[in-house]
């Protein structure tokens, strides 16, 4: 055996092909969409139902209603109580999972293929004929209120909530927590839940995604059986303008006396999912703060030791979500950390990135795609993106080719367009007594001190 040459990284072998699973679609007469993708070598199926009933659709004054409605579905149907529903799922080994985002509410089970039919029958009953028992809705509302209380004492959640509040004007849904505020959730009633359900949960604004040991014919058969007679409704639209809250860079100190770290969020209004700069922005953000070896992490963690980790990201939604840099740093280096993070933002905006950095970021994003598509749940989640954002079915087949077109010039262009340093909302949750003066001394903008009631 030869002696290894350890002085250079070994050359890669020949690349092996990767293909996103092929999607097949059918639509039922009531407008209900069925999508299937065969994947995996284990006898499992993930069923994911996506409904156009996200938190952006919360009526005025009723923030948190979409979330409460989604959670309340499994607490009773015309024939079963909450306890009976839980038993019926779990004795099959199935957990019924619920998630509400700004753009959709989704319901998911992963089940051995042999138990798909009974599990899906129950799933359909829960989604289609919820009874919303008064007592259960009240319980869930009280739990949601308690979560809001907990978020005030949890520095990461508090920082994220405060960042949203200071990035977006108060009338923008994104300005408030997705689960609502104490004032809004206290007003929510069983009738609000039922009304939201009636308006939003219709087959023609819903898609059932089946991934795993299943094909489109079987998917269609099951969909017809359990969702075929769901009466079509009017699919409502959600529209609003996204307006920023700050017009000059401002530091908002949120006092948390005795904090040994400061949770920093540097935020701005980002872009919508459909923005033409989507791929260049992914690459640009990877260079700035989207990977371990991105500039923010190398500076704040590996060079300065201020933090366990720093990152940045765009929340791509149907409307422009936030762009946020986030980092937790030791209290005594708070101002220096803000200064260094702003320096990295300005540097990328002014000078752009090298061809080498751009290539590394492109290759990283292209390479991790198959790693993140190993499970039926992961594949179903990507198909849900196709549904929610109305992307072409071939989107993930073409994903790597589109990344490959991004150049260093594109990175510079989108950094100049989308990274601003003159109108940032900088939120710092920490010990105001220790951090306010050093933050003022930075001179990046006015400093306001807030207390959490």
């Amino acid at each position, binding site marked *: 055996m030869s002696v290894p040459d350890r002085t250079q990284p070994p050359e*890669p072998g020949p690349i092996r092909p990767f293909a996103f699973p092929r999607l097949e679609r059918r639509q039922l007469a009531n407008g209900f969409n069925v999508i299937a993708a065969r994947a995996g070598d*284990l006898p499992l199926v993930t069923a994911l139902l996506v409904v156009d009933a996200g938190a952006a659709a919360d009526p005025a004054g009723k923030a948190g209603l979409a979330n409460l409605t989604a959670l309340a579905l499994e607490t009773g149907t015309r024939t079963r109580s909450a306890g009976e529903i839980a038993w019926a799922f779990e004795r*099959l080994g199935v957990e019924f999972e619920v998630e509400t985002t700004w753009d959709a509410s989704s319901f998911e089970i*992963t089940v051995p293929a042999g138990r798909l039919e009974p599990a899906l029958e129950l799933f359909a009953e829960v989604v289609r004929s919820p009874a919303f028992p008064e007592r259960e809705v009240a319980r869930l509302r009280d*739990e949601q209120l308690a979560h809001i*209380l907990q978020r005030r*004492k949890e520095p990461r959640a508090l920082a994220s909530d405060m960042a949203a509040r200071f990035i977006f004007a108060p009338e923008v849904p994104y300005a408030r927590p997705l689960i609502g505020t104490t004032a809004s959730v206290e007003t929510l009633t069983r009738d609000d839940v039922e009304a939201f359900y009636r308006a939003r949960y219709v087959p023609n604004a819903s898609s059932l995604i089946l991934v795993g040991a299943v094909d489109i014919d079987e998917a269609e058969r099951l969909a017809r059986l359990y969702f075929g007679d769901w009466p079509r409704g009017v699919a409502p639209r959600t529209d609003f303008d996204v307006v920023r809250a700050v017009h000059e860079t401002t530091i908002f100190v949120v006092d948390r006396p005795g904090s040994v770290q400061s949770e920093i969020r540097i935020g701005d209004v980002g872009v919508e999912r459909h923005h033409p700069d989507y791929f260049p922005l992914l690459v640009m953000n990877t260079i700035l703060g989207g990977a371990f070896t991105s500039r923010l992490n190398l500076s704040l963690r590996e060079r300065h030791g201020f*933090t366990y980790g720093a990152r940045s990201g765009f929340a791509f939604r149907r409307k422009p979500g936030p762009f946020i840099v986030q980092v937790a740093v030791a209290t005594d280096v708070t101002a220096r950390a803000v200064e260094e993070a702003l320096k990295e933002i300005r540097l990328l905006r002014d000078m752009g990135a090298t061809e080498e950095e751009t290539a590394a970021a492109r*290759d990283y994003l292209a390479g991790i795609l198959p790693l993140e598509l190993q499970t039926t749940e992961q594949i179903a989640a990507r198909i849900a993106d196709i549904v929610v954002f109305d992307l072409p079915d071939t989107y993930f087949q073409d994903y790597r080719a589109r990344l490959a077109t991004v150049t260093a010039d594109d990175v510079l262009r989108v950094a100049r367009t989308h990274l601003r340093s003159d109108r940032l909302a900088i939120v710092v949750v920490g010990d105001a007594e220790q951090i306010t003066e050093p933050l003022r001394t930075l001179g990046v903008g006015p400093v306001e001190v807030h207390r959490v009631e």
Partner: protein
Amino acid sequence: MLRIPFERYRLDNGLRVILSREPRAPVVAVNLWYGVGSRDERPGRTGFAHLFEHMMFQGSAHVPETAHFALIEKAGGSLNGSTWLDRTNYFETLPAHYLDLALWLESDRMGWLLPAMTQAKLDNQRDVVKNERRWRVDNQPYGDWDERLQAMMYPPEHPYHHSVIGSMEDLDAASLEDVEQFFRTYYAPNNAVLTLCGDFEIAHALERVRYWFGEIPPGPPVPPIPGVTEVPPFLGEHVRAVVEQDISLPRVYIGFRIPPYGTPGYYPAAVTAHVLAWGKASLLYRRLVRELRVAQDVAAYAFPFVVGAAMLVIWATARPGVTADALEAALDRELAGLRDVDAADVERAIHLIEVRHLSDLQRVDERADLLSMFTMLFDDPDRINTELDRVRAVTPQAVREFAEARIIEENRATLQYVPRDGRRGS
């Protein structure tokens, strides 16, 4: 019947190698377990095993500083490491044609770490780890619960008495000499398991493993775990503590000593944890959350420790207006009910474990980590296929007997968190 394929080998230097082919996607998971964890730390150096793990990413003789992360990320891979009581693991998942890159990086730091170590790197990573402690523990509601509970459950001379993250003072005391000594003692092929899972040919992969790892010399025999590793099976008394913190809701943690992971006595405890708090039909969810409405959330977990005794931990967060004492009393009533648990509760728990295990096995990185674990802890990689049989063999009677023997006052530690503004008793 589960049939994850694998081949096992042992190199002349003692490195155990598991190769599991799974060619469905063009990716490969490379996973290394070293038989060292926080249990092996000596007094005055708590947190060192984890700090050392950070140093493993700071380059080695042929790998420049920051190159380890940069090369894997540029290849389109993800990577990390983690430290636990009984082991330290390092893993990367990357496009299959970059297998050699991962083997080069892992073999270089296994064989040639020390020439790259400097005081500046140690000082930097010490600051990073101290910030990790602030982030996970000191600045987080209930963040120190595991540290406190471990100290209550295990005597000072036992290796599980202290937490993985360690104390700030001990992190400050760590020196470059400690790095060198720790490396020479524990980081050797004869104290490691290397697992590859993914898209490769077995013969080729084995040849590449031999090529990169074959020339690394074995280390000396690994010293025994320090301290007193045997503990009585029961705590002997009900140990209690109350902590005031800046939190909005009280929380109660209850721990019981249980038989070590891997022994027959462990599995009834694992099933009990699921009976209690996994899923919305679990005992504690349905009683404390849905019916009585005294808890905001509930959880239970049988921690899979292997030295002396493991622990079953049950916790619940109070609803607003409910005191820690009232919540604890409600927990006590449900725990007492375990002694005549229904067969249906046990069957439900086992079905949930089965489906979750199957679902986890979809990932090559998860398969690789389990194969490394079962090889390192039990010298039996086939447990990836047979472990579920041990779970399925747990009968309702076994759960009842477990509860009767172990879920008792003399074997219990209770840790209450209460809001700083007071109001504890009812």
